[in-house]
């Protein structure tokens, strides 16, 4: 097994409620736009203050108190340029305007909110993180050289530390995390009628392992972004052992099998009535039923075998099936005579082992 800590930019935090939850850390490329926005806001505020003060200075010059306006201008400039981040982070729960716009937040490394002292430290030390400054020589004039901070020190420490902290964060014991809003609760919906049908062929006492459940959920979330061929290719790795274990037909669509297992694990209810299988009733995906007359075998349609675009690798039988997989059941099964009408629970006649849910585990014991 791999090491327990995920190789990820998340950090676990234990709350006073004794719950551990994960924060996603914000890297340099989320924090840079936030800094630039803050820089713009800061200068915007300074310019507005200067305009207001110059208006006030004009008014005050008649009463002879313009010097106070100038002095307060200097002091305000000083306070805004040095303590903008400190005050905002303290009073807005670890966020400045730029951080709010970029959806990030500063918190303590223990997951607690930031305190005023820590906010001050990390904001004062930003100067050191922006080091070393370079002088742009083409615009430079002797009196006013233009310094451009490169931020190499901060970038280097962010790369080197586990929590992606810059020097100011290290000194203050803080970290910047992603504080996303507007997410959706992902619940995959199953609208393919073949899925519950196939799911009813899994034995009722079959319980998937945790890692399998996780893999199934991830697969169900992602499969919409994949082409059918790619789905089959990915699903095959897990499907082949399942096909062997439950003795399904070898030409079963691996994607459909995984999706059915997902349905079985997450969506179906054991107490539910067996779903109305409609035209699919009577079709068995099991290998031992493969040679029985089902009205489908030897036909051009097999509803659960992979759809048309070439035979799936690893399947022996090559059956040309028309249409894409989504409308295979509709086109090929409607109106067909079904010689052995049965549902999942009905007992078939003859010596065939029952096609019901209890059948398969018993045969597994025999193996």
């Amino acid at each position, binding site marked *: 097994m791999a090491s327990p800590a995920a190789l990820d930019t998340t950090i676990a935090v234990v709350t006073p409620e004794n719950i551990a939850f994960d924060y996603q850390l914000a890297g340099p490329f989320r924090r840079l736009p936030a800094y630039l926005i803050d820089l713009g806001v800061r200068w915007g505020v300074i310019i507005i203050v200067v305009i207001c003060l110059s208006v006030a200075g004009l008014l005050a010059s008649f009463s002879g108190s313009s010097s106070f306006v100038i002095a307060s201008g200097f002091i305000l400039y000083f306070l805004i340029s040095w303590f903008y981040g400190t005050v905002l*982070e303290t009073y807005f729960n670890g966020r400045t305007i730029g951080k709010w716009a970029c959806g990030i937040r500063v918190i303590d490394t223990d*997951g607690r*909110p930031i305190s*005023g002292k820590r906010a001050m430290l990390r904001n004062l*030390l930003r100067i050191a993180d922006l080091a070393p400054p370079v002088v742009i020589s083409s615009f430079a004039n002797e009196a006013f050289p233009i310094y451009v901070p490169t931020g190499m020190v901060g970038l280097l420490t962010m790369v080197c530390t586990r929590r992606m902290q810059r020097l100011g964060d290290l000194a*203050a014991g803080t970290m910047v995390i992603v504080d996303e809003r507007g997410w959706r609760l992902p*619940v995959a919906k199953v609208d393919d009628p073949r899925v519950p049908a196939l799911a009813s062929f899994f034995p009722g006492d079959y319980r998937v392992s945790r890692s399998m459940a996780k893999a199934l959920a991830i697969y169900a979330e992602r499969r919409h972004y994949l082409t059918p061929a790619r789905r089959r290719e990915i699903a095959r790795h897990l499907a082949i052992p399942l096909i062997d274990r439950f003795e399904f037909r070898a030409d079963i669509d691996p994607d459909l099998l995984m999706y059915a297992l997902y349905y079985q694990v997450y969506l179906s209810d054991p107490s539910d009535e067996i779903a109305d299988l409609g035209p699919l009733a009577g079709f068995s995906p099991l290998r031992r039923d493969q040679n029985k007359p089902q009205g489908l075998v030897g036909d051009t349609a097999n509803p659960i075998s992979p759809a048309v675009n070439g035979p799936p690798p690893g399947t022996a039988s090559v059956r040309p099936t028309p249409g894409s997989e989504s409308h295979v059941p509709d086109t090929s099964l409607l109106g067909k005579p079904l010689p052995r009408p049965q549902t999942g629970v009905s007992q078939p006649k003859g010596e065939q082992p029952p096609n019901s849910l209890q059948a398969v585990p018993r045969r597994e014991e025999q193996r």
Partner: protein
Amino acid sequence: MNVAKLLEKRRVQWSELERLCDAMEMRGRTDKSGFKHHQGAQGIARFSTLYRAACADLALADTYQLPPGTVTYLHRLVARAHNQLYRANKFEPQSWSTIIFETAPQQIFSDPCVRVATIVFFGLFALAMYLGRNDTLIPGFADRMVGTEQLSQLEDAYEAPLAGSLDHYVSMSGFYIMHNTGIGLRCFAYGILLIPCLISLAYNALALGTMFGYMARPDVVGGDNFFEFVTAHGPFELTAIALAAAAGLRIGIGLFYTGGLARTESIRVNALKAVPVMAASALLFTLAAFTEGFISPSPLPYVIKAVWSVFSSGLISFYIVVLGFPREAGEFASQLQAGEPTDAA
């Protein structure tokens, strides 16, 4: 019960918690969530109930075999609610007097970094002053150190005797607060990198010292006016620069003298130690700025400025030595006081 039904059931509460979070993120209150039972204290109680429920869901997520997407969602929901429940500590102005008058002087007195910074600063300052005054030792030292142009500008500035109106004083003290405290804060920030801080400190010491030495030459016009100007605010300002650098060095030194801690942990501990020193330095910068704005350029008699200078030096000495002297007995008493409630509890 299957997972989908479980999720549907829990989802009602989760979305209620989300709406509460929305409301709290905007205003810090639960009133605007749109539900009637979220007003005031009731809303906060409801919020914490829902938060604990979400925590419990997250804790049981593994047992319920929730899909990973839902677990991610729960992590975010709990994190978001956690950020609203445990909000940032505001500044505590009532603790500032303790920091300025107890923690800071004790830290300054016992910190070797303060000694190093002071020796570097005042040592180089005295050396540069001596070399700037005496042109025969290293000929042209002052011109090369500060620049001929700046020196002549300096001479011109102090040719006329000091006189200024109140208007001028007020605006200049504002400028000095901005400019000099800015230099101090920059020195402090670069302290974590050690070398830029030392370079900045040494440069300030050499440049200032050379100017002082140059103006002290007998053949320079305006020397008397210059010293009349700098006498009053000198003690505050020079000490403040040295202290700012010392606070910065404290953080940088933490990288090397870890005292058995991990390096990052050591930086953190030392940075928290440096904050009171920096606060004291900022206070001195402000005092220096007002002195420099109001007393230094005024046409007051020199005696008053000299007395102010002596007084301010005494004040700094009192602050560092008397307030900062390590007091074991006092500490012991305060420890006892602090210990009693815990024993009772």
